[in-house]
């Protein structure tokens, strides 16, 4: 018989479980385009935790295809047709609502992810330079006075007793050590001499040399020794905080039809842009401008709701943005991001370019021009440029790239402009990535 008691435990299980979680993260990254485009995330208020159903990560293997719903063998009372359990519907397939083991169902692992984490994952995926590495325009806000650091000079009432006595103790130990190496005598004897000499090094050396140590302390009890310069004072400082501000000026052409998809794409882009900028800046504001033949400032609700008919003068929106920057968001204190959503129609594109140039001269961080045409034929859309797009392209000598119906155009490295033509949800993530990448590398 052998019953052995052994020492536990290897850490292999935990280590390999971590690797599995890493793979889950990779799976989340793969699903990012869907997650980013998920309407329920964008429209939700408050709760920052979202749930993503991911199938438990499985090794591929050949396996039979199963048709539709699940089936299996069970045991117990009942006739064919009897209900043995149910899984409540939550609008989405695959969300589990059952006890493990007792109810049939699909093996889903639902992972809870913070929106913050998704943003981190996206940044990681983008390979963007670390956020801290970018210089952001900061504003110093004066908050008043505060007791700050420790300094070597000051007025008596500001003497910091603790810091001073610490210095005194340091002095004691360094003198004791110096005495010991100088004379080569026992530490306790040196201590007695130093105490007898009341902390004066030269005197202590003398006492030791003359062999006049009379004090007979049996243990070293350190005492502070002060020399000039050992006194420490508290400092009064001005209290300030570095504030970094960003504003997004969102502009939208509301002339003509504003389909749901168009609004949705605009909303999703803005939602994620705000989320990103919040990671970058302490204070992020967003202002909304709508325009047809004239432009006006509106609130968020009206921004997404308004649809008017009439002519289209894009420059009016850019003009309003320029004056908003002049009056409220000077670029020496604000990081300014401008986004314009349009269907490409413009009665006076030359004036639009004029106003756009003014924005660039003001050194705004980035300007995004989004042409949203959800209903267009992808092939037509690919070959058909709007007049405004062509104007931008020629004027700023932009280079165009296409990927699955998503069109991107950008110019020289330091030109803070990105033009995007997008048609569907799947374009949101790549468009965002391009915008952020451009922003990071412009300066």
């Amino acid at each position, binding site marked *: 018989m052998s019953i052995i008691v052994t020492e536990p435990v290897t850490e292999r299980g935990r280590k390999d479980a971590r690797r599995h979680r890493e793979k889950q993260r990779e799976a989340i990254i793969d699903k990012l385009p869907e997650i980013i485009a998920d309407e329920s995330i964008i429209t939700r208020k408050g709760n920052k935790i979202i749930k993503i159903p991911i199938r438990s990560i499985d090794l*591929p293997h050949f*396996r039979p295809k199963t048709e539709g719903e699940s089936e299996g063998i069970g*045991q117990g009372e009942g006739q064919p047709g009897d209900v043995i359990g149910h899984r409540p519907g939550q609008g989405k397939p695959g969300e589990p609502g059952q006890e493990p083991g007792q109810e049939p169902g699909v093996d889903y692992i639902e992972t809870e992810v913070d929106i913050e984490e998704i943003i981190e994952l996206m940044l990681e995926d983008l390979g963007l330079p670390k956020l801290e590495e970018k210089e952001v325009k900061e504003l110093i806000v004066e908050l008043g006075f505060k007791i700050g650091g420790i300094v070597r000079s000051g007025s008596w009432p500001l003497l910091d007793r603790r810091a001073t006595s610490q210095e005194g103790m340091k002095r004691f130990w360094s003198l004791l050590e110096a005495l010991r190496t100088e004379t080569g005598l026992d530490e306790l004897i040196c201590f007695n001499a130093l105490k007898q000499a009341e902390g004066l090094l030269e005197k202590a050396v003398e006492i030791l040399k003359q062999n006049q140590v009379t004090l007979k302390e049996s243990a070293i009890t350190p005492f502070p020794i002060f020399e000039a310069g050992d006194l420490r004072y508290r400092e009064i400082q001005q209290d300030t905080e570095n504030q970094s501000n960003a504003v997004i000026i969102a502009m939208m052409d509301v002339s003509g039809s504003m389909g749901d998809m168009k609004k949705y794409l605009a909303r999703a882009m803005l939602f994620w842009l705000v989320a990103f900028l919040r990671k970058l800046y302490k204070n992020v504001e967003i202002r909304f401008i709508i325009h047809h033949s004239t432009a006006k400032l509106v609130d968020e609700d009206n921004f997404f709701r308004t649809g008017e008919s009439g002519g289209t003068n894009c420059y009016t929106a850019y003009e309003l943005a320029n004056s908003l920057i002049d009056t409220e968001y000077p670029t020496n204190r604000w990081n300014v991001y401008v986004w314009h959503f349009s269907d490409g129609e413009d009665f006076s594109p030359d004036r639009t370019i004029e106003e756009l140039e003014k924005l660039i001269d003001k050194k705004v961080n980035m300007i995004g021009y989004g042409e949203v045409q959800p209903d267009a034929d992808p092939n037509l859309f690919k070959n058909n440029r709007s007049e405004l797009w062509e104007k931008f392209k020629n004027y700023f000598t932009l280079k165009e790239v296409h990927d699955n119906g998503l069109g991107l155009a950008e110019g020289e490295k330091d030109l803070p402009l990105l033009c995007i033509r997008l048609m569907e949800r799947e374009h949101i993530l790549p468009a965002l990535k391009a915008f952020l990448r451009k922003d990071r590398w412009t300066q």
Partner: protein
Amino acid sequence: MKKQEIERLVEIEKRIKEIAEESGLLTTEIAFEVTTAQRVLEGMAYEFPVNFSHWTFGRDYEKYRTIYEHTGTGIPYEQVWNFDKPKAFLVETNPFALNVLVIAHVYGHVDFFLANRYLKHGRSFSNVVEEARNASKRFKEYEAHYGQKEVEKVIDAGMSIQWHQNPDPFFEEQDEEVVRGRLMSLERAKLERFEDLKSKFKKPETKEEVAQIEKRLEKLTTKTPPEPTYDILNYIIKKSPKPLKPWMVDVLTVIRNQARSLAPNRKTKGLNEGWATYWHVKIMRRLFKDGLITPEEHGIFNDFHSSITQENKAGFNWYRIYLALFENIKERWDKGQFGRDYEEEKNVFKHSRWDTAAGLGNQKIFEVRSFYSDRMAVEELFTDEFIREQQLYIWMGMSGENGEVIYIIAEDDPEVIREILKEQFTYYGVPLVRVENGNHNSQNHLLLKHVWNGYDLDSKYMNATLEKIHYLWGGKVFLETRVENKETIVTFDYNNKKKK
């Protein structure tokens, strides 16, 4: 665990061994290791006491641990390995009575290991335990040398096809040249038959046949594999034109050997658990009668026993159903309820009250434990009466309103249930896929064939698996399969593009 408890456990273990031997169970020296629940969870996930690192093991470990820590169910109460020197874990924090139960249960398993022909075969390959332990060290060195990701790629690919073995567990893979020689001499033997006849009497059909045989012979000289093989991993290890580096061959060989030694366990899991459960009940009763465990401890045992054997309305509880099976067999063979006379008895009362006092129950259950697999047990011993008595059924999920899914009993016909179980215990969800040609298109392409038996392959999984095989093969991989009643060839080529 306290020292006194361990001493008492040692005493009880001695007695359990005696009881087991008196009852006709085969025994041997078993190493019981008292350890933490974590260690047992690890053992469950890693299949061996020490095994190499892989994220699938980590995933399973995490799953078992979560269930254990959060629901209190899934108590890792036993883990025993089919080794020459069997080894089992006892959990230090388990109640004393539960550890006694585990020892009794393990003696049941160990008898099954020693007697069952499938498990005997499982031990015959190599010393997989030592191999696993050593592999874990070697793989670590490979990781240090070639990078964790590279090693993982090979393990992933190997494990994705590790269960593709010959469906006959006793089949011995032969060297390709031996197979070639055998097949060629068969063909030659056929030719010789014709040579007896004078050539002028030969009918045109005979000539045609001879020509065909000669053509086959011609092909056989270079054909690889000479006949289709189900052991995909073995074929890749031996023949991959990638070429595989020695360390990759090592990794794949370890994975293949582990799967081969574990396959017999899968084929007998039900009978093995049923048998161990059958005997732990008997042994625990005996210990109680002998006064070796207190009434209180016996009560704790009863609670555990009933939770282990509880009915699962959406699942197949091996412990419950196979325990019932052994009890059922014992009763039937004790009463002589088998054979033609019994089966053909038309009188319902006579049939159900049949008792010839044959007293063969014990003999029969030992026979079943020695020679049967789960599949054979279903075929022969899951009678209509047994399936009805066990209230087995097939359930199905139906979509209700608002995405709700309702699970209903779809079928309780014993015939249908038997067929489904038989199929499950034949393939274990592993479709039959064999290597047809390792020099397809004369370009070292790999041609696989899915032997269709009623189910198409899940296409997402199929493509991902082909990608893994492609990684190991290094060249184009083709798979002949059937998609919606059409013969199709799926390709996986260099550019990672899937085509039909």
